[in-house]
């Protein structure tokens, strides 16, 4: 018995070591490239041309200043633009998804099942397949170089809707709504002041996710925006690959990349717990 137990313990220890080794390797993979990015954003162009190093150099703030003040890639402006679009999208997406979900959750109306089925059916269709018509239409409506086509479509977000619908089923008893009615609360009032506060956790999580996906979105904005003062961060980052910017010093390039991902990174570090919780809650429940 005892020897069996010890054997089991040894086996477990070995297994643990292997598991931790695998985890350590994966952590290394996840962090290594970003670490190199930070190191390289602290090196001058000449230092960068001289090869590989793991140690940061002293030019971080020089590069930051150069990148921040660069005339052709106006990164502060891009960050501001991205921030405006992403925030607006996040607010609209979560509010209207909750509204739609509530409409289906709380009311019985004719065609409700059809509506629900429809939203579920189109949930997986990517934006790219209607991009052509979308861009054409925006051209016709004179909405290129405008944030409307980047923000307003967020109102119809089937995935967020589905999440909200599921969440409501677990937290929103219909009795509560009935009680509110008896108290004389109007329907929109009930939604805005009684239901929404109950959805706070779901709204917070979905706001973060829609903020991030809007911040990172490249395909559609690149087709619609061309004025320098309207460009978003991903467009600017993609431009770093083109010839006319090749004269850039590489330290600056690394700094641009760092700046592009920094806001999301900071948000993540602050809120990682609830974000990770949101990942599971959003998709499939066991």
């Amino acid at each position, binding site marked *: 018995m005892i020897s069996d137990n010890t054997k089991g313990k040894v086996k477990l220890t070995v297994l643990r070591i292997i598991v931790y080794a695998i985890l350590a390797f994966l952590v290394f993979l996840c962090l290594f490239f970003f670490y190199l990015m930070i190191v390289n954003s602290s090196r001058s162009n000449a230092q960068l041309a001289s090869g590989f190093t793991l140690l940061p150099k002293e030019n971080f703030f020089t590069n930051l200043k150069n990148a921040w003040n660069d005339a052709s890639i106006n990164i502060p402006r891009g960050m501001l633009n991205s921030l405006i679009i992403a925030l607006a999208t996040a607010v609209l997406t979560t509010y209207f998804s909750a509204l739609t979900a509530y409409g289906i959750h709380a009311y019985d109306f004719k065609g409700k099942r059809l509506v629900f089925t429809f939203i579920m059916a189109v949930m997986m269709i990517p934006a790219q397949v209607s991009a052509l018509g979308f861009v054409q239409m925006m051209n016709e409506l004179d909405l290129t170089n405008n944030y409307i086509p980047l923000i307003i479509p967020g109102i119809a977000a089937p995935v967020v809707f589905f999440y909200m619908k599921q969440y409501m089923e677990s937290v929103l008893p219909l009795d509560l709504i009935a009680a509110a009615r008896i108290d004389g609360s109007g329907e929109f009032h009930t939604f805005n002041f009684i239901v929404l506060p109950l959805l706070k956790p779901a709204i917070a999580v979905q706001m973060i996710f829609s903020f991030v996906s809007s911040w990172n979105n490249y395909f559609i904005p690149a087709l619609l925006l061309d004025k320098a003062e309207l460009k978003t961060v991903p467009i600017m980052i993609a431009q770093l690959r083109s*010839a006319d910017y090749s004269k850039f010093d590489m330290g600056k390039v690394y700094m641009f990349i760092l700046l592009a991902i920094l806001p999301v990174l900071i948000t993540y570090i602050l809120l990682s717990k609830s974000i990770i919780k949101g990942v599971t809650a959003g998709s499939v429940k066991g």
Partner: protein
Amino acid sequence: MKKVFAILLAALMLLSVVGCAEKTPSTPAATKAPDKPAEQGKVFNIYAWNEEFKGFFEKYYTIPEGVTVNWIINPSDNGVYQQKLDEALRNQDKASADEKIDLFLAEADYIGKYVNSNYTMDVTSFGFQNAPTQYEYTIKAASDDNGVCKGVSFQCCPAAVIYRKSIAMDILGTDDPVEVQAAMDNWEKFDALAAKAKEKGYYMTASFAETFRAFSNNCTKPWVDADNNLQFDPQITAWMDQTENYIKNGYTLTAGIWDTEKTNEMFKAGKTFCFFGPAWYYNFCMNNAMDPENGCVGDWRIVKGPQAYFWGGTWLLAATGSDNTDMLKEIFETFTVNEDVCSKLVSEQNQFPNNTKVVEKFAQDSSYGNTAILDGQNDIAIFAELAKDIKWENHTNYDQLLNEGLQNKLQEFYNGSVDKETAMKNFYNYVKETYANINVPEA
């Protein structure tokens, strides 16, 4: 009831589709903005593909009070600049006065597309007269098939060979421009020199496409013939042969012409002998050579090289519908006939201006020398000689993307990822995809 809803929904969709379809075929409205608006606009919009001209504009042109200048800048790679510009020009009619493009920049490789369209306007319509001091080819390039001029160039772009003095000394035993030129005044000698450089451990050039312009801008037939068939000029095939040979022998690198790998060769530690470029090349491409720590300012000289050519050039074109025509006239004058500004472009920016009088002045001036990079050599004198021979011919509207595409696809052959046949096949596919109307061999 479900059905009713479904039908309603379908009807709504149909309605919107029809509504949109009706509007879809967009043809530029026939109404043209009046040629001479009495009132001048308050917003001046400029389309450009990089910051080069913006720098000069902000430095040497005084913007009239109350006017805001907007720069709309998109990179030219993969034709992005042309695509964005085309779309804006096609919408010019319906844009409000402040949204209309007033001025846009165009490069030699595709300027024809714009000057031969109604989207650009005759410079004389707002009172600008080309001066005899402008290089003739720059006027020809900016004129349509009937000779109506639509804009000006602020530079003239004769190009030459810029070489490293110290490497010349090592290879040839001399760094004197006259002797170096004698050692490379035709392609056979240039190739022989490349072999010699290789023996000493140097590269002749730092990019497979370095010599492309020296060949391509001497073509005797355009990329596309009268029947829209793609054709290869002997100069292009000569470049391909030379490059294949250079790559095989290690005379050059597989880097593209704008790659960091190439520009890093301009550091002091670089092993590359020659770079090909015009006057704008110094500021635009040679930052690493001017690096305070690892650069090598003063270790450079310029010579004509094996074959006279020109490269690039930025034309300023007047957009039809502009409500800032007075400003257009002023800007055109500032960068062509204004001798003071043109002189400053030379002395402060090392540019080669589009003003023969100013050029002659610097060329004759024995006290003038380029100190930014050439350690006092008078490059203007060399460029001035070359500028006399520039001819404007055999250009098509497709040049930019055909030149770029050929280089991109062949690069894969040169770096060993595909054989030549595949590279050419990829090029043909690329052409077909980019320009549906061009016929390519066997595709």
